[in-house]
């Protein structure tokens, strides 16, 4: 299994029956492919849809039914549409149970930077700042390193997305949580040693006595 699929598959195990979930673009979007068969979750697209379904079959796309990236989607039974004020009332108001987002950096206390690289990439924060501020649970889906450099750092050098720390980071190497505000290694991917994770992480990791193998 490639790195992205490992991450998406592991995060899908965080889903619970009946949750309202917002997925960011990139790896987070892939989480929808691995929803456990025995549960039902509702996905929100922040452009104004709850009940977002899979990409439509050839010829079945509707030009006015898209995800937040403007790509055609479907609406499942029970879906509803709404304006952007309602969409962000849901997000900021704490009505979204879980959001899955990408990251440029996460620090040892769980603070996230995921929206700009000054002088290089200034796409705008879109809904990311509201999602991190307001969602009940923030899960990060990201490759453990970028061009060989750790993305879990002592302190973010890039502009922060929010002062609210994230709850969980899932990479192709590990699952990291932040009990008591400190990055703690919870699981390692099959075939990956604790030492490998520590070596690929700049922030100091709390290493509990029992570190499980990543469930997939």
């Amino acid at each position, binding site marked *: 299994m490639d790195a992205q699929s490992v991450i998406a598959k592991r995060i899908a195990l965080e889903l619970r029956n009946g949750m309202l979930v917002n997925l960011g673009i990139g790896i987070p979007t892939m989480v929808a492919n691995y929803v456990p068969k025995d549960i039902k979750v509702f996905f929100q*697209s*922040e*452009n*104004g*849809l709850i009940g977002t379904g899979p990409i439509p079959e050839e010829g079945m796309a*509707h*030009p*006015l*039914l*898209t995800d*937040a*990236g*403007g790509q055609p989607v479907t*609406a499942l039974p029970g879906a509803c*549409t*709404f*304006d*952007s*004020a309602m*969409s*962000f009332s849901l*997000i*900021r108001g704490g009505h979204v149970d879980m959001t899955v987002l990408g990251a440029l950096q996460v620090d040892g206390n769980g603070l996230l930077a995921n929206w700009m690289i000054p002088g290089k*990439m*200034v*796409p*705008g*924060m*879109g*809904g*990311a*700042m*509201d999602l991190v*501020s*307001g969602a009940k649970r923030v899960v990060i889906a990201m490759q453990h390193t970028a061009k060989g450099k750790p993305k879990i750092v002592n302190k973010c050098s890039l*502009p*922060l*997305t*929010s*002062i609210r720390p994230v709850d969980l980071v899932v990479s192709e190497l590990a699952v990291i949580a932040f009990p008591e505000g400190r990055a703690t290694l919870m699981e390692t991917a099959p075939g990956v040693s604790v030492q490998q994770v520590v070596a690929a992480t700049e922030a100091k990791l709390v290493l509990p006595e029992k570190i499980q193998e990543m469930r997939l």
Partner: protein
Amino acid sequence: MYRMKTVSVENAVAMIPDGATVMIGGFMGVGTPERIIDELVRQGKRHLTVIANDTAVPGRGIGKLVDAGLVSKTVASHIGLNPETQRQMIEKKMEVDLVPQGTLIERIRAGGCGLGGVLTPTGVGTVVEEGKQKIQVHGKSYLLETALHADFALINAFLADYLGNLSYVLTSRNFNPIIATAADTTIVAAEHIVPVGLISPDHVVTPAPLVDYLVANG
């Protein structure tokens, strides 16, 4: 006001002067009034300030205004999918003010419903808080984000009756009903304009008094 509101797209757009501030509906071009945009380009309205969620992509929606070099300033939450907007921003041909999406829509909503602004936790402790007043309520920090207002709101609706009652479909609603409240003059491009009474009262999302002019998309 209640009256018949249909006009030609040429006459509607002729009312918009160079240098106007325009709020434009749509999310990545979905729900953007393309017919009004095309006419803005044809009439060459310049030095526009655009307030919108994003600038879509080159060749689509607000992207057409950017392509034609008609936009001096953009207030948006995301420009990452339009390289032309980013190029003009880097070359300082266009000023870009990036605002968190939930904050942007609430600032517009505030402008349209008579509020001076809103208090939001979004952006506290980030670069977004620079220059803004921070206010504590019940022990939690919020930023004071001030109301936004425009000269014109340019809207896309699915159904309109001749009085200007509007309804929308699927994900084309997005910013449209909110910006309808926040401009001096609201111009709507509708897919279908139907006789008064045909839209069920329960299905009207934007009440007619908010709409000033209607043009047909067809």
